[in-house]
């Protein structure tokens, strides 16, 4: 369920680092908690992100939820398909429905985030 090669935040984002690029998304737990996702607001390429600061938002029928960037860096790519098909976030949050790709300012930062095992313990405890 939760890929071993991802790192996870307490705010339910995931990050996958490949070289100096990070792919960021929200977790399956996050989409499950939100319910039907109907709107995704993402930054433009070129936007500078700070770790722990809002990078955009995801909205379900019921509520708005901020997405916090797990890493610092510059947005290089945005998942455009989510503008027209936000419901993909409910179907494939760890795959096709990634949110943004970021050129990392400091790749070592992700070591502070949770492993898949730690995250699963964390959401188990949260319930």
């Amino acid at each position, binding site marked *: 369920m939760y890929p071993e090669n991802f790192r996870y935040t307490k705010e339910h984002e995931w990050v996958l680092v490949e070289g100096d690029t990070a792919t960021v998304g929200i977790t399956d737990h996050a989409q499950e*908690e939100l*319910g*039907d996702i*109907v*709107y995704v*607001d993402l930054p433009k390429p070129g936007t500078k992100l700070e770790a722990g600061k809002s990078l955009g*938002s995801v*909205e*379900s*029928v*019921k*509520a*708005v939820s901020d997405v916090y960037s797990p890493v610092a860096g510059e947005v290089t790519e945005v998942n455009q398909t989510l503008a027209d098909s936000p419901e993909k976030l409910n179907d494939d949050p760890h795959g096709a429905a990634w949110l943004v790709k970021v050129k990392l300012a400091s790749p070592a930062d992700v070591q502070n985030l949770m492993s898949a095992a730690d995250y699963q313990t964390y959401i188990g405890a949260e*319930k």
Partner: protein
Amino acid sequence: MPEASSLRVTPLNSVHRALGAKMVDFGGWDMPVQYSGIIDEHNAVRTSVGLFDVSHMGEIEIRGPQAAQLADAVTTNNVAKLQIGQAHYSGLLYDHGGFVDDILVHKVAPDHIFVCVNASNQDKDFEHIQAQNKFDCSVENAGSQYAQLAIQGPKGAATLQKLTSTDLKAIKYYWFTDGEVAGTPARIAHTGYTGEDGFEIYVPPSEAARIWNEVMNAGAEFGIKPAGLGARNTLRLEAKMALYGHEIDASINPLEADLGWIVKIDKGDFTGRDALVRAKEAGLKRKLAGFEMRGRGIARDGYEVYLDGAPAGWVTSGSPAPTLNKNIGLCYLPIEHAVPGKSIQIIIRNQPVDAVTVETPFYKRAK
């Protein structure tokens, strides 16, 4: 999980949990917000049938020879005009004209009025009515004596009919009758909060879980779905039905809320009447208006509304509308602008996003 001890529960709480519902704290009640998903449940009600647990709603019984007079003295609509077996939507107001609550008034007998009120307002409503009981009535806060199920949607009647010998076709809209459902005494009301056809039944709490299952079985052939408060909200918003704490509260009077039709100024005196007469004479300042988003974004409760570059009002409810495939909302605007076709901006995360006021209700079922 929420601490069970701190939240009130309906008799169906374990049923919801067994169905895997997502539970939320709704005004101090542990209630299901969704089961299969808000959009799926919403669509089930619009196209077939959905089943809601609304046992958190309160009930107040007014009994005595002057029960109707007390009800008329504390509510805005004309109780004297109700026939036995008829119900209407009404308001309980403070002296200053603001809402204590919005309610459904049922005339059970010449000496018995049955009032359905909002869950989180029931104690306040009871005290408000009791304090004005100059009619020697018995007023009873009876919420714990009833479970309430709402069977809503075009297949609602066909579903419920299987479980009762009462001819549901003979119950006109906003009428009710006392009968039996699945062998248990039930008050069967042709009412609802979804903008769709349907029934609301009041049953003994001890029978609620059994009747829930009977209704689910009866509706199986129509694809009945349990529906939660999330779908209840999107359904009522499309139908432009007010929600206490959003469109209406103590600071809003019924004329501002576009609910003039439940205010019968000429029926005689009632609490809040003088304030409404004065407000009318002075001229209303603001009124509820519906809008659709034109720009990308979803308006939410409490967001600011701008008109011609200046703050002009606030959003009371906003949501995607699953049936209409639009993002809609209700807002208060200066009365001269509370008409369809006005360009407004909703401030979403510090950004103005274009919207336009529209005719309401947003959705009206084909009769």
